[in-house]
């Protein structure tokens, strides 16, 4: 593993912490009904989204997913901006008509998602094609879950991305579940990275709860992609702490599995490490936590004081 500077580690930690606190807050808002629709928590999986985006350039792209807050934080979207959208406010980047699940924010390179799993994969490949065509030096990360791998769009897109040596990195967040069904009930091959050879592509697998591991593999893959050496398929093994969505009673799941999953915490793991390495102290940790919480609170206040998306907006932007 290459050397990651202490500064970078601290930055990664801040992003990870911010993701965690934001998620906790969103769950609260969800439960009180202030966020509409379904909410899919990324608790326990944050290290993947943060690790793969943390050192992307601002111009680089990544698609959103239904568990996408880690990538939004990693892409340095200001919390106020994100929160306004999540609460359906006019000053979100989608003017409040799309919310967090379909969060689309081109200014920060976030490509959104249509809502049909797998549909975002060829779209991301197309963005990479445009980057290559314009020799823009940009890179695209295409991220999705293990269940989404079984969609035809995965197959069609990986073949093309590899064939054309596009500047794209495929990241699979393998949490072993798709909704309420375990991976072993739906996947013939549970080691997803092994599919890479079928596309003559480099395949990698990492512990997705170790942010440095994720970061390191992503860094290499991004560099390869940027150099024109083509895509990599990175499988990140993670654990899902919550149900599929907040409110899911998880009757289908062995309580032991939940317990075990929750014991694997990417945040406290990284925290311990940084404290061991004396990069963080309990004091600086607490300070950081306070400031993150404050930032989130401010974002919520900002969002709540902003106007709700209006009827008229529903009729705009259907056609150019």
């Amino acid at each position, binding site marked *: 593993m290459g050397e990651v500077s202490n500064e970078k580690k601290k930055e990664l930690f801040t992003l990870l912490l911010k993701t965690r606190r934001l998620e906790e807050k969103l769950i609260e808002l969800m439960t009180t009904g202030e966020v509409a629709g379904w909410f899919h928590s990324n608790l326990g999986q944050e290290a993947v989204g943060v690790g793969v985006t943390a050192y992307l350039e601002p111009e680089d792209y990544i698609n959103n997913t239904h568990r996408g807050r880690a990538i939004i934080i990693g892409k340095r979207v200001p919390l106020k901006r994100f929160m306004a959208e999540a609460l359906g406010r006019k000053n979100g980047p989608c003017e409040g008509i799309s919310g967090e699940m379909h969060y689309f924010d081109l200014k920060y390179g976030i490509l959104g998602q249509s809502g049909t799993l797998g549909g975002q994969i060829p779209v991301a490949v197309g963005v990479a094609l445009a980057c290559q065509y314009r020799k823009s030096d940009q890179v695209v990360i295409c991220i999705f879950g293990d269940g989404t791998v079984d969609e035809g769009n995965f197959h069609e897109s990986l073949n093309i991305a590899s064939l054309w040596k596009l500047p794209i990195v495929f990241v699979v967040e393998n949490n072993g579940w798709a909704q309420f*069904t375990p991976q072993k009930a739906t996947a013939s091959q549970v080691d997803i990275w092994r599919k890479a050879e079928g596309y003559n592509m480099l395949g990698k697998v990492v512990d997705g709860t170790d942010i440095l591991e994720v970061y390191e593999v992503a860094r290499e893959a991004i560099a390869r992609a940027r150099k024109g050496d083509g895509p990599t398929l990175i499988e990140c093994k993670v654990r899902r702490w919550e149900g599929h969505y907040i409110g899911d009673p998880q009757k289908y799941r062995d309580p032991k599995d939940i317990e075990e999953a929750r014991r694997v915490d990417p945040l406290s793991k990284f925290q311990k490490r940084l404290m061991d390495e004396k990069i963080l102290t309990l004091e600086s940790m607490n300070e950081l936590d306070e400031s993150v919480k404050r930032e989130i609170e401010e974002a919520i206040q900002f969002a709540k004081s902003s106007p709700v998306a209006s009827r008229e907006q529903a009729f705009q932007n259907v056609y150019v």
Partner: protein
Amino acid sequence: MKEITYVKAINEALREELARDDSVIVMGEDVGISGGSFNATKGLFEAFGSKRIIDTPISESAIAGIAVGAAISGLRPVAEIMFMDFTALAMDSIVNSAAKMRYMSAGQCKAPVVFRTLGGGGVSAGPGHSQSLESWFCHVPGLKVVYPSTPYDVKGLLKSSIRDDNPIIFIEHKFLRAKGEIPEEEYTLPLGQADVKREGSDVTVVTWGQLFFKVATSAEKLAREGINIEIIDLRTLIPLDMKTIESSVKKTGKLVIAHEAVKISGFGAEIAASVVEHLFDYLDAPIRRIGAAFTPIPWGTVVENAVLPQEADIISAVKDIVRSRQAKN
């Protein structure tokens, strides 16, 4: 009679048909171990086992195609495509395989598959989980299209759909907790038969699916103002029960068609066009159609409500049509 929810009615229909005929299998994402995304298949895995209640990967095209293959070899698969929006991924299997198998083989096989799918909006599910796309399927010869509104209808029609020898798009709506009465004993309802849910003499309102409920409450309000609408709940779109529409239109002379799908190129157009073709001389007012605005369906209550048809739209269309004729006469 007993009162049950819409989703429970679906569950009962599946359970009864699974028990009745061991060629019936249920397949789809999360239909098995977990009992389904919305409990429609609750308890079936335990009762009928993994060979008959089959969890699939997230592979809509293959789910639909596999169901067709199983159907032409003697099974009666009920394949769930979780949301109607996702049928977009399965169109080839549905349109180019299921619908044409019997025809292309000159009757050597049949493809008795039921594609269950959840349509409609109104729950802040956003543009990719809220569409009503029934008119696509109504344009495909070989398919039947069913979209029941009430627990009574959904149970009786799902049972009949499973027994039917044709491929069927069976649309369920998101008002899954809607309650209604059904008989204690077993029953089925015939496909292709509309139901006059309310008799009236002033205006015929043809509707189906989720929007039926808004039409029903509109009817109450209109009645208070002395306007009596006749509500025809189509239940089955293909084959279309023109007879029931015909006799109502002959009586009222006025027709409103109300569906939740986007109005342009929706199935309401087909009904309007058919009525004009065959009942032109009975109409004494233009036909009015109500449907969603020509936009995707945004997330969030305010914007979503702005786009989807509401009670007020139904009421004003009915009043318009009544008034416009009064003015003329």
